């Protein structure tokens, strides 16, 4: 069973539907016991980093997610949920993340040319890191996925499993052991996205 963490941030309808479409048994939950008994955990999120981090802490589920991830359970963060996996976020102030992947969340405006629009919104191609992550077992380099974001994960190359070029190579997906994060929305990326979710479910 896949547990989707419900901490009051964003719309979980599409994510739950996409997991149903690939035949995965998924539940949306705010119950620590369900997270503990799940085979895998999905951490979604939209909105601003500080607000989401605060909401996650207010539920107390942050500690559960961290403990389960440190115990080896596969965890996938999506969009802002991916950003929360890092150590710090610099969106409207400085906020602590979960610290499961080394690095911090910075404005993409810091690294892309001035004439490019922000947010980075639309379909962009994935470039894999030096090794192909098991998350991408069913997709190919160059496949397109759907992004909507104004901040990116600044981290060492060893944690980056895919980039997308938008005037600069932005972190599209990151991993640290059993902890994974996608900056893009696999649940909105057509068959490519479903194949990424399928690979995660099979980890």
């Amino acid at each position, binding site marked *: 069973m896949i547990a989707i963490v419900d901490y009051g941030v964003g*719309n979980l*309808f*599409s994510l739950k*539907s*996409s997991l*149903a*479409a690939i035949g995965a048994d998924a539940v949306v939950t705010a119950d620590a016991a369900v997270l503990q008994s799940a085979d895998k955990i999905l951490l979604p999120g*939209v*909105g601003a980093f500080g607000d989401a981090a605060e909401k996650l802490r207010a539920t107390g589920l942050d500690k559960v997610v961290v403990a389960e991830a440190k115990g080896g359970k596969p965890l996938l963060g999506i969009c802002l949920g991916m950003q929360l996996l890092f150590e710090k976020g610099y969106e409207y102030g400085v906020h602590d993340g979960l610290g499961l992947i080394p690095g911090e969340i910075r404005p993409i405006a810091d690294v892309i040319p001035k004439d490019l*629009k*922000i*947010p*980075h*919104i*639309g*379909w*962009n*191609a994935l470039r894999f890191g030096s090794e192909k992550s098991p998350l991408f077992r069913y997709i190919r380099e160059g496949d*397109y996925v*759907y*992004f*909507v974001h104004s901040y990116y994960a600044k981290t060492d190359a060893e944690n980056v499993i895919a980039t997308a*070029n*938008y005037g600069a190579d932005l972190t599209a997906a990151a991993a640290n052991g059993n902890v994974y994060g996608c900056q893009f929305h696999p*649940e*909105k*990326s*057509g*068959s490519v*996205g*479903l194949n990424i979710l399928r690979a995660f479910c099979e980890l």
Partner: protein
Amino acid sequence: MITKRIIPCLDVKDGRVVKGVNFQGLNDVSSPIELAKYYSENGADELVFYDITASAEGRKLFTDILTETASKVFIPLTVGGGINTLEDFDRVLKCGADKVSVNSGAIRNPSLVYEAAKRYGDQCVVLSADVKRVDGVFRVFAKGGRENTGMEAIGWIKQCVENGAGEIVVNSIDTDGVKGGFDLEMLDAVCNAVSVPVIASGGAGKIEDFITLFGTLPKVDAGLAASIFHFGEVKISDLKAVMAQNGIPTRI
């Protein structure tokens, strides 16, 4: 690099796609769900559902269809039509919409864009503007293009972006339905005024119209059309192949 998006728009009334469609291989050509699946599998980058229902019963049917579509189609889905309040935003977002398009609602209630962007994020709020030249000036029209508001369009669009609109659909009434190409002059004026994504609408009649659009105005992010896709005059897969041949970034 980010690709130029191709977006079919479906007008839905009482749970059915209004403009007749002509596709082989579809059992029910006026089912929004069937059509959405077809487009999603054949290269559409995003879908717009436009609710042109007036009755409460029709509204309920629309949200049921939206829910079913969003549980089967996994590309971004924008919903418009009859969006006047934050409750309307809430209603369609809960049924699986990713973005909500406002038009007359933003004209009637200028704080709607601001309030919605604050609650749901800029990326969720799409301003759809029906624009027509009147004595050489771009004016905003309301009520499906029937009523001249008297407002100057570029200023109005800029103001909406400042209030938090994350994308702009520019629908040129002057070129809409003519099939003679997009309104390049109007789109250029909007692109030069705002820094959020601009979606061109109104006037597409053939593949070359999209090539001219993206070739002439690299700042335009997407092209939206309805009948030429529904009637099969332009197949999205053919359109994208020609875009690629012309060096326009596209998702194939």
